[in-house]
């Protein structure tokens, strides 16, 4: 911080750290601070959910619900915890609730409705300019087991170091390494196969 404290108004929004924004939202109910967080993490959360295997529209619903949950729990946020850790913890709870829904689980097992939505997403993504590579990667990651996917999500997409991943998931650092190795090997296999087809 350099010892010099700049006022909220005098700084550019992009310079303000997530933690400070969240604290401001939590202590003074500042919706403008929260609004910045929503703008920063909307796409991050959407892609997080898409890599979990949900459809685009469900991904947006889950992202919205996560932000609403974040707003409800804003007073519980402690600056000792990294903001993204807090956010993804809430996001994970949302997606767990989502998959617990019996109808959704049935849909996932049957694959019928889900496939329809995936196809609709493909059309939408094409329209929005996201090419097949993005969809192929998303599908490949969604196909991993939960334990492998969590490591890839935190390590590759959120760019957290092994030590922090180990702390978040509550597993030894060596396990993180081996899971990452296995996950990447499987992803290589899936993506290479997809390329050949």
């Amino acid at each position, binding site marked *: 911080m350099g010892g010099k404290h700049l006022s909220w108004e005098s700084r550019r929004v992009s310079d303000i750290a997530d933690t400070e924004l969240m604290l401001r939202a939590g202590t003074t109910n500042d*919706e403008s601070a*929260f*609004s910045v967080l*929503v*703008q920063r993490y*909307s*796409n991050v959360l*959407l*892609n997080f959910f*898409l890599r979990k295997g949900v*459809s*685009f*529209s*469900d*991904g*947006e*619903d889950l*992202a*919205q*619900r996560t*932000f*609403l949950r974040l*707003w409800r729990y804003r007073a519980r946020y402690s600056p000792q915890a990294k903001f993204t850790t807090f956010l993804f913890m809430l996001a994970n709870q949302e997606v767990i609730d*989502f998959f617990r*829904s019996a*109808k*959704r689980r049935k849909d996932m097992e049957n694959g019928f409705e889900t496939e329809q939505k995936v196809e609709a997403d493909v059309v939408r*993504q094409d329209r*929005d*300019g*996201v*090419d097949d*590579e*993005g969809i*192929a*990667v*998303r599908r490949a*990651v969604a196909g991993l087991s939960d334990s492998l996917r969590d490591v*890839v999500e935190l*390590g*590759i*997409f959120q*760019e*957290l*170091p*092994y030590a922090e991943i180990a702390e978040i998931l509550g597993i030894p650092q060596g396990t993180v*390494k081996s899971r*990452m*190795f296995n996950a*990447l*090997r499987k*992803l*290589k296999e899936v*993506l290479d196969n997809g390329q050949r087809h």
Partner: protein
Amino acid sequence: MDKDIEMLDPALRDVVARLKAAPTAHVRESFHADVMAALEGRPARQSTGAYAPSWFYRNVASRHAAFAIAATIVALLGVATLFMFPAANPPVPSDIADSDAPAIELADGSRPATSIAPYAPSYAVQSLVADQSTSSETLARTVEEIAKTQNADGGWGCPELTLRNTAALAMAVRVGDKTAKSAWKRGVRHLRAHGIPEIDSF
């Protein structure tokens, strides 16, 4: 993380690069506004899937269901109360009161086949209760006429007679006749134990 990735096999490093370079999806343009609107309590965008309950369910159906359940409970309690406390002045059945009452005893001393004699005390109680000038002793004597014919099981050997006598005793209890109370309670117990007779048994 980059330092960790550098330690990986080159082939796997390529996979990491490919994952990171893959295009990502973007939320709709209105997403941010929807979230902020939802914070302020304004209606947010509705789910397109079956995951989120619809506005209709959250605001209308669930409240109506709660109201319907409450109304059903109140109605059931009301029906139960009717059996416990019969109306103050139930109408005398017209078929018996109007046509048969004068024929309790015919001019030659005989009784018609459809006599109201078994019901006479209960009709008498109804009439006396309705008349405010009736003395409590007169009412008590009439109540005793009913009570002394009551069987040990609380009934009067006939579903219809049991109903009429119990109803008459309830009316007497309501106006403060203490002699009717125990007979009325036993009559109610009998009705509870045996149920209300089907209409065909009358």
